[in-house]
């Protein structure tokens, strides 16, 4: 079995479990919906102001909602200590990590696809810059959140207050990525400056942290 086929098997299993339980997607959607509604009541921006602040609002909502899903990722493996069954098998640790990261990417991408129209309606958004760059920023930004999130969620599974530990570990290390996501999104929406440097920063961040997580995951998985 290759790493990719093991990753696919674990991903398929995770998607099946999520389809049956809907634990992550329901809690993420409910949380993100609340954020959109609360923000829309809190601010009453003009179309121009919306373009300036929407990048921040959108990504903060997705970041907080993603944490909900990330906490669920490993909780499933702790029930009945199923993670031990993986650890005693000859399957490589990185297949598990990649499957979890891809799974979270799919969950957060589904959330973004469902919530983006609501953001557009609530904040009367219209991009003045190159719109085709938005999916690129979304994909790179989402991967930045989930790759670190999956890693730090794995690190915190054996701690007593893991729901608190995950944001404490994840948010500080995500600051460069969040900054790049917000700036790139604001640049595309306002059309006032180029998003390319921020997209390049995001891509670099993704490569560096994906490599780091893959190199360190086995140690995290075997930690007691």
């Amino acid at each position, binding site marked *: *079995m290759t790493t990719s*086929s*093991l990753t696919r*098997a*674990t991903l398929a*299993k995770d998607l*099946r*479990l999520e389809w*049956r*339980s809907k634990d992550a997607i329901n809690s993420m959607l409910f949380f993100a919906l609340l954020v959109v509604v609360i923000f829309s009541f809190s601010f009453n921006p003009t179309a121009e102001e919306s373009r300036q602040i929407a990048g921040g609002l959108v990504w903060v909502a997705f970041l907080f909602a993603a944490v909900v899903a990330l906490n669920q990722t490993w909780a*499933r493996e702790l*029930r*009945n*200590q*199923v993670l*031990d*069954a*993986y*650890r*005693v*098998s*000859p*399957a490589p640790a990185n297949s598990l990590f990649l499957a979890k990261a891809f799974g979270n990417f799919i969950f957060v991408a589904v959330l973004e696809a469902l919530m983006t129209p609501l953001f557009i309606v609530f904040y009367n958004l219209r991009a003045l810059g190159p719109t085709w760059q938005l999916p690129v920023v979304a994909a790179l930004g989402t991967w930045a959140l989930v790759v670190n999130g999956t890693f730090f969620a794995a690190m915190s599974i054996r701690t007593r207050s893991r729901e608190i530990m995950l944001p404490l570990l994840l948010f500080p290390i995500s600051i460069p990525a969040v900054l790049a996501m917000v700036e790139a999104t604001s640049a595309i929406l306002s059309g006032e400056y180029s998003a390319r440097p921020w997209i390049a920063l995001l891509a670099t961040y993704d490569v560096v942290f994906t490599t780091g997580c893959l190199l360190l995951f086995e140690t995290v998985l*075997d930690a*007691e």
Partner: protein
Amino acid sequence: MPPASHTESAANVAPIVVVTDLIKQFGRFAALRGVSASFDAGRLYAILGDNGAGKTTLLRSLAGLTRPNRGTVSMLGTSDLRSVCHQVGYMAHPSLLYDEMSGMENLRYFARLYSIEDNERCASVIRAVALDPELARPVGQYSQGMRQRMSLARALLNDPKILLLDEPFSNVDVRSAREMVGLLAKMRDAGKTIFVVTHQAALLEGAADEFVWMEAGKIVSRTSSLQPVEAR
């Protein structure tokens, strides 16, 4: 007691598991305090002892799930347990199964981890533990006894040479437990080495080759029958 021919042949084989001066501490609590022992291939070992004696920690050390603070575990001639993990089956006290999936779905997934593509292998181990592979009910809706048996099926999936079982008979009715013991004895007769951590030692009387008694993180006695252990 096991058949005489089996006992004689077992005496001629080299140790398959060697544990040397194993120490494991959890904070201030020493779960294992210098355990040294060797175990021969093709034998069924019952590991007994009170709660906190170190039975589960020893089993987890053999499975490579717990890293000892000191000492070594050698299995199948190597101390690199990762390199022989495909020849080891492990059943823990919890089921190690996904509650939301059926038994067959669980086993199909775990089979992939061992590069087993054959669905018939999954079905045959489920049948071996007297369950129905066609049962579509999720494992979460199984009775505790069924879950234990499915958990044993998962441990047998890769046809391991060494089987590590932690409390396989807990919450299993006597008839099913006896069936499980019969299956384990058959596997032992087929040359597998089996370690069973249990509080129900009487079930293994007549099937186990050796009773290994643990106390306060040490092996204090190894006997071929249960009587001397009970007389302690």
